[in-house]
C-alpha cells in the first residue's frame, strides 16, 4: 500500500466506522493518516523472506478459564453510565436498518 491516502478513502473509512466528519476534518485526517502510513511503510524495508506469519506477538497460547459463573454487575451499575435508559434497557435511537444480529 502506498504511503498516501486521499480524501475519498478517508470518507469511505469514516462511513464504514459510522463517523461523521466535516470537510475540514477530512482534509486533516487525510494528512495525518498519510503520515502514519508513511511511517509504517518503514517496516517494508525489513526482509521478511522465510519468516512465518505471526498470529500474536506473545509466545503464549491456551489462556482458558473454567466454565464457572461469577457475579455480574447488576442492571443498576450496568446502566449507571448509559446516556439514556428505558426501564432496565439501554435506550438508543431507533435502529433503522436492523441488520444486527451476529
Amino acid at each position, binding site marked *: 500500500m502506498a504511503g498516501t491516502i486521499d480524501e475519498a478513502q478517508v470518507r*469511505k473509512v469514516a*462511513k*464504514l*466506522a*459510522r463517523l461523521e466528519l466535516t470537510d475540514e476534518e477530512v482534509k486533516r485526517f487525510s494528512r495525518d493518516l498519510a503520515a502514519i502510513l508513511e511511517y509504517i511503510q518503514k517496516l517494508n524495508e525489513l526482509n521478511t523472506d522465510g519468516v512465518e506469519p505471526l*498470529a*500474536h*506477538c*506473545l509466545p*503464549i*497460547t*491456551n*489462556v*482458558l*478459564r*473454567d*466454565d*464457572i*459463573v*461469577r457475579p*455480574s*454487575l*447488576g*442492571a443498576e451499575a*450496568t*446502566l449507571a453510565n448509559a446516556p439514556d435508559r*428505558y*426501564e*432496565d*434497557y*439501554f*435506550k*438508543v*435511537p*431507533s*435502529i*433503522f*436498518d*436492523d*441488520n*444486527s*444480529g*451476529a
Partner: protein
Amino acid sequence: MNDLEYQVVVGLEIHVHLATRTKMFCSCELAYGQAPNSRVCPVCLGMPGVLPIMNRQAVEFAILTAMALNCRVSPYTKWDRKSYYYPDLPKNYQISQYDLPIGQDGFIEIPIEQGRTKRIRIRRAHLEEDAGKNTHTFGDFSAIDLNRAGSPLLEIVTEPDLSSPAEVRALAQELQRIVRYLGVSEADMQKGHMRFEPNINLHVTRNGQVFKTPITEVKNLNSFRSIERSVAYEIERQLDEFIETGKTLQMGNKKTFGWDDESQCTVLQREKEEAHDYRYFPEPDLVPVEVSTEWMESIRSRLCELPLMREKRYIQQYRMSEYDAGVLTADRATAELFESAVQAGGEAKRVCNLLTQSGLKMSNDRGCTMAELGISPDKLARLAKMADNGQISATSAVLIFETMTQSTDEPEQIAAERNLIQKSDAGEIEVLVDQVIADHPQAVADWREGGKKSAKSRGFLMGQVIQKSKGQANPKMVSEILDRKK
C-alpha cells in the same frame, strides 16, 4: 410459463448456541428470559481496558461438534475482530474466527426420501460471540438488553450442496439432533438456540445454456417451517424474476432478505452500501489456541454414535420400522434407555412398543423426553419380560408403565397390588372352561358345528371364561384349553 429446467442450489449458514454455563469471554451467566441487563459485566459491556478470557468448555464443545461433522480440526486457531456497528454489541466489533476456524472441510449425512441419505459438505465451523437483543416495540427508540451479548455461538457453514427446501429442512433437523446428542446445545428453536441463513440461487437451463440467478440470503430464520418455506418461496421468486428480467449472478448483486412469517414471503432488507466490508483483523487481546494431540483425543473420546447411524442400526439390528427407530433415536437419553433395557433382558420389540406407544404419548403430554419419565432400564426390562411370558396382558403392561412413571414401585409389585397378574394355572383355568361349557350349551353347539356362527361363538365362550376369572386368566391359555375341548 415455468417450463424451464432448473436446479436449486442452497448453502446454509447455521448459528448454534452452545450450552455452556457462562459466556464466551467472561464469567457472566448464560441465562434465557432473565431481567434485562442483569447478566452483564465490564467485559461483555465492552468497557475500555478489560480483557476477554476464553471459556474452555465452549472451545471443547466447538471442537467436539466439528469432529462429529467430520471436519479437519485445526491444531492451531486464533481469533479475529469483525467490525460491527450496532448497539447490541457495544465493543463495535465481534470476536470471531476468520482465517483459522476450529473446523474445516467436513460433511453431514442427512436423511432424504426412501430411507436414503445424502452427504452435504461442511465448509467450516468457527466460534464467535453473539450480540445482545434489540427491542423496537416500546416506542420510537430501540431498547437494548445485553444479557445475550458475548454468548458462545458456533457458526457452521455448508457448501451449496442442498437442492430442495426439504433437504434444507432435513439438514437443520439433523443438525439439531446431532448437537443435542453431543450435549453441546439445547438447540431449542423457541429460545433462538439455532438460527439459519440459507443462500439460495438457481441454475436455469435455457436453449442448452445454463444461467445462474443472483444469490439471495435469507436472514435469521428460527423455525424449521420458516426455513423450508422461505427457500420454497425464493425458488419461485427467483424463477419469476429470471423469466421477467433475465438477470444473472454478478459480483455484488447478492441480496439480503428477511422472512415475513405473517405474509409468508421474503422481504428485501435495506442495506447500507459496503455493509459487508467487515475489515477483519487479528484480535490482540486473545492468544491463539493450540490443540495438542492429547487434548484432541480426550475430546474425541466424548463422541458418540450419531443419531442417523443409530437409527439405521436399529432398523437393521432390531427389524424396527423407520418410524419406531426415529422415535427411539430422537434424543440420546431415550436411545440409551432403550438399549440398556434390551441389554437387561427386555425383548427389543416389546421394549420398543412400550416406549413408542405409552412412552411417547406420556412424554408428549408432560413435555419431556421419554428418558425423563423416570423409568429405569432395569424396571423397563422386567416389565417387558412379564408381558412377554404372559404374566400380564399387553393392556396391563401399559397400565403398569404409566404407574411406574409416578411411583418408585417395582413392576411386579404394581402388578400384584392391582391384581394384574394373569392366572396361568392350567388346572384352575380348565375348571372355569368346563363351567362355561356347561352353562352355555347353545353357544357350544354352534361352535362345535363349525359354519358361520362358529368363530363368533368361540369368541363369546372365551369372553365368558375371562369374565369368570375377573379378567385375570391368561388369554393364550384359555384359548388353548378351550380348543382342546372342541
